[in-house]
């Protein structure tokens, strides 16, 4: 109503009496007891009582006492009414009571704040005391919450346990109760964390620890993972239903640690169902699950990647062993082995891209695994050599069999390039490849497209320097064709010294691109000499300042053998042709005579004679007719020879030059190491030994893995050649000598 005009101020006792009456009414209403609601004049009246008492002139200004009264109302209510009601209940019922009384308290705070509003506006503002709302809530916290939270927490945790074990619980209730914990923190999460969350996490920890121990014993790896995935899902749901969102990361970490981290080794190494078995049996779903589960955990994927690497390494090693066992008399079936390794790579790369989401850890694990077994020797052949031989056979076959599908060749080439990446002796591969490429190019068994394709891919992967020589070789063949046309033109036009009835083709090779071949001073038959001379004349006209070096060991020749029965065309190497033509003039020649006449080395002559007299086709008769050539043998043209074929190709088995290739590569490596060391020291000027070594290894790693001892030796060599010197004060440091 209107402010009191009565000059008599109200005392606190009088005021409290009125207030108490209002409070009683209020509590009855909000406790749900039958009580008519406040009429608006009663509402205003209550407000006014407080207002009047506040504006009274001192000493009757009762703001302070009213503030106290306000606090006392709550205290009494909490202590006398709320707390006992809650305490007499148990379990879920207690929770409900708490929830109910908390709501009631909130309403009470709201209503009484309205009644006492005037205090809020002036007294509290002036005095700096807590607001009415804060007082009300703090009272509840101190006199109710503090007394019951322990028991409440016990009940909550018990209910959660029930839910974990599969039973239904009242989630909404739990949400309310846990909200209370949060609210009673009065602005921070301390109450929630200390009074509930810590206990909850401890309980969770032991719960999942027990589960993990049981499951790991009873279940297979896939079964376990499904259960783990399910548990994590359920716990996440739990958070969304009634836990505070802050709890989520801590909870999940807890569960993951127990279910996944602590048992990782046991789980992954489970016999018959662990990582190894899953990989072997193509269980992509389970592997994907494994990835998903461990991906969440920091550094969780490491053990999985390790298991992956070990498995792939074991598979690779067993392939190597199989090949080793199957290798008879030192000959490895590299076709089979390389194909198997390629297939292995495809299989496990698929796992990396699909199940393991292309994660770098798994790419790395795959790479490391392949690097281990791809660098093993099989029956004396290095992997570099085997891969080069594989390519050789691939291209030779492809050149002959045009029906071969180009795309399979291309994809095989891609695989070869990938495998080469794992081989550390790349320079050794290049050298073997070059030698075999030379043979392919010179004996006409190649397809220009395929050769260029692989070279392009190798260049893309390993740089231009790797393939420059080989590209030069292929280009030489191209140019050779044009040159040959020019050569033939020359004959047509000049008609001088044209080799009589001999078709003659020359391929000019650029030294440096091609492997080095030894020359020999073979005495050719006259017809061949004429050919050589005429080409020389032509070439000298065309180019100046170029020297031709004739490599007869690489040539081949078509001869007609006029045997008694019928003439047969013989396709032989130049050396063999030279030997055979020697019999054009004499029926019979001894070994020594052949040596003298032809000027061939013993090793070569033995090989050639063997191929012509002791092998499948005996064009020459040997006396004595033993299986090997000796220096006392003599030979005769075997006019009685015949065969159903009209054309016979007589291969000359190539000399095993594996040793030479390895030697050549070693020599190149020494130069490369020297160059690298000098380069490094030139730019760094001063460098400690270990750093120099490691930088050198790093620089050269693209082509090969240098032996530390070899590096040391090269350093010493450079010191003695005055490129480097040892620091006199610090003998483990080197200085560049300008």
């Amino acid at each position, binding site marked *: 109503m209107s402010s009191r005009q009565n000059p008599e101020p109200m005392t606190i006792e009088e005021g409290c009496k009125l207030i108490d009456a209002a409070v009683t009414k209020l509590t009855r209403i909000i406790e749900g007891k039958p009580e008519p609601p406040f009429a608006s004049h009663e509402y205003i009246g209550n407000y006014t009582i407080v207002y009047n008492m506040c504006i009274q002139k001192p000493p009757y200004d009762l703001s302070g006492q009213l503030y106290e009264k306000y606090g006392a109302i709550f205290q009494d209510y909490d202590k006398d009414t709320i707390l006992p009601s809650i305490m007499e209940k148990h379990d879920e019922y207690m929770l409900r009571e708490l929830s109910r009384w908390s709501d009631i308290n909130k309403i009470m705070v709201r209503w009484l704040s309205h009644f006492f509003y005037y205090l809020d506006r002036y007294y509290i503002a002036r005095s700096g005391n807590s607001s009415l709302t804060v007082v009300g809530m703090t009272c509840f916290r101190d006199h109710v919450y503090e007394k019951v939270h322990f028991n409440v927490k016990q009940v909550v945790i018990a209910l959660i346990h029930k839910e974990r074990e599969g039973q239904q619980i009242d989630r909404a209730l739990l949400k309310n109760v846990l909200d209370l914990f949060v609210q009673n923190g009065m602005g921070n999460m301390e109450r929630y964390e200390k009074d509930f969350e810590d206990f909850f996490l401890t309980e969770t920890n032991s719960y999942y620890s027990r589960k993990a121990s049981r499951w790991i014993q009873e279940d297979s790896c896939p079964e376990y993972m499904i259960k783990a995935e399910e548990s994590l899902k359920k716990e996440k749901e739990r958070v969304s239903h009634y836990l505070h969102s802050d709890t989520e990361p801590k909870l999940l970490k807890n569960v993951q640690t127990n279910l996944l981290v602590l048992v990782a080794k046991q789980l992954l190494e489970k016999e018959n169902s662990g990582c190894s078995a899953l990989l072997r049996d193509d269980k992509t779903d389970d592997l994907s699950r494994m990835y998903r589960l461990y991906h969440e955990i920091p550094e969780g994927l490491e053990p999985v990647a390790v298991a992956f690497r070990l498995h792939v390494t074991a598979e690779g090693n067993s392939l190597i062993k199989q090949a080793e066992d199957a290798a008879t008399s030192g000959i490895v079936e590299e076709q089979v082995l390389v194909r198997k390794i390629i297939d292995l790579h495809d299989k496990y790369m698929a796992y990396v891209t699909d199940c393991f989401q292309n994660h770098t850890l798994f790419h790395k694990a795959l790479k490391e695994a392949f690097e281990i077994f791809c660098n093993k020797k099989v029956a004396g052949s290095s992997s570099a050599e085997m891969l080069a031989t594989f390519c050789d056979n691939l291209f030779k076959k492809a050149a002959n069999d045009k029906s071969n599908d180009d795309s399979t060749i291309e994809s095989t080439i891609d695989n070869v390039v990938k495998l080469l990446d794992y081989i550390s002796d790349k320079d050794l591969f290049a050298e073997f490849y070059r030698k075999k490429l030379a043979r392919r190019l010179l004996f006409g068994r190649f397809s220009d497209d395929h050769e260029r394709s692989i070279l392009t891919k190798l260049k893309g992967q390993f740089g231009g320097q790797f393939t420059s020589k080989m590209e030069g070789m292929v280009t030489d063949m191209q140019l050779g064709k044009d040159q040959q046309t020019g050569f033939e033109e020359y004959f047509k036009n000049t008609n001088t010294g044209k080799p009589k009835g001999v078709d003659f083709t020359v391929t000019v090779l650029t030294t440096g691109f091609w492997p080095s071949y030894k020359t020999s001073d073979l005495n050719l038959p006259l017809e061949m000499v004429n050919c050589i001379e005429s080409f020389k004349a032509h070439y000298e006209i065309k180019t100046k300042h170029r020297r031709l070096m004739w490599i007869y060991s690489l040539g081949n020749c078509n001869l007609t053998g006029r045997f008694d029965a019928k003439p047969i065309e013989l396709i032989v190497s130049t050396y063999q042709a030279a030997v055979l033509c020697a019999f054009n003039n004499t029926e019979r020649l001894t070994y020594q005579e052949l040596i003298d006449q032809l000027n061939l080395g013993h090793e070569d002559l033995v090989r050639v004679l063997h191929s012509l007299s002791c092998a499948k086709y005996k064009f020459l008769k040997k006396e004595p007719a033993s299986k090997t050539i000796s220096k006392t043998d003599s030979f005769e043209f075997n006019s009685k020879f015949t065969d159903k074929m009209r054309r016979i190709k007589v291969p000359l088995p190539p000399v095993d030059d594996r040793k030479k290739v390895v030697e050549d590569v070693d020599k190149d490596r020494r130069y490369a190491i020297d160059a690298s060391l000098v380069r490094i020291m030139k730019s760094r000027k001063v460098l400690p*030994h*270990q750093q120099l*070594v490691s930088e050198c290894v790093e620089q050269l790693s693209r082509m090969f893995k240098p032996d530390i001892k070899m590096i*040391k*030796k090269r350093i*010493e060599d450079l010191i*003695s050649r005055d490129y480097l010197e*040892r620091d006199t004060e610090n*003998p483990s440091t080197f200085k560049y000598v300008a």
Partner: protein
Amino acid sequence: MRRSAASSKKKSDSITSSTTDLFRSASSKATTKEMDRIDHLFNQYANTSSNLIDPEGIEELCSNLEVPHTDIRILMLAWKMKSEKQGYFTQEEWRRGLKALRADTLNKLKKALPELEKEVRRQTNFADFYAYAFRYCLTEEKQKSIDIETICQLLEIVMGSTFRPQVDYFVEYLKIQNDYKVINMDQWMGFYRFCNEISFPEMTEYNPELAWPLVLDNFVEWIREKQA
């Protein structure tokens, strides 16, 4: 400080010459006298046509000093002289060495040897001496390495008394290995560091990944195999 009779005749107007002058001239006289004796000693052993003490002369010197020809002390003497050519002492080198030793007679030279040895064996000097010993054996122009046989002898002389076991083992190894036919200065100095820094025969501190010369890596490996 008596003026000699001869000089008093010459210096008629030097009544005012100071005692320091006298002292100086006397001591320089003494110095020249010392140098004369040193030269005199030189001439006793030098080859008159080349004016050098040649190997023959050195042998005689050694026998007079009662020191074996291959003794380390002769090498030390050469070091003191900073002698450049093995087997020969020039007059300048001779003067340098004997003056530094303050020895102008054979007897004094003999007496100076133990002191010289002590001086050389001082840690600060020995490394220098050790390197000198190597250079001294480089007889050809532009020669950088010394053959194994000579190295073995040199090691014996220079290090035999102080590092007996290391020298014995290393010499044995050098004789049976095939990787190296000569040893260069770097490897030579490496061995010195090896003897000083690595306990023998345990060699626990030795790490082949460090900057030790490769020959020592192989040496250590060889010993380890023997010990196994």
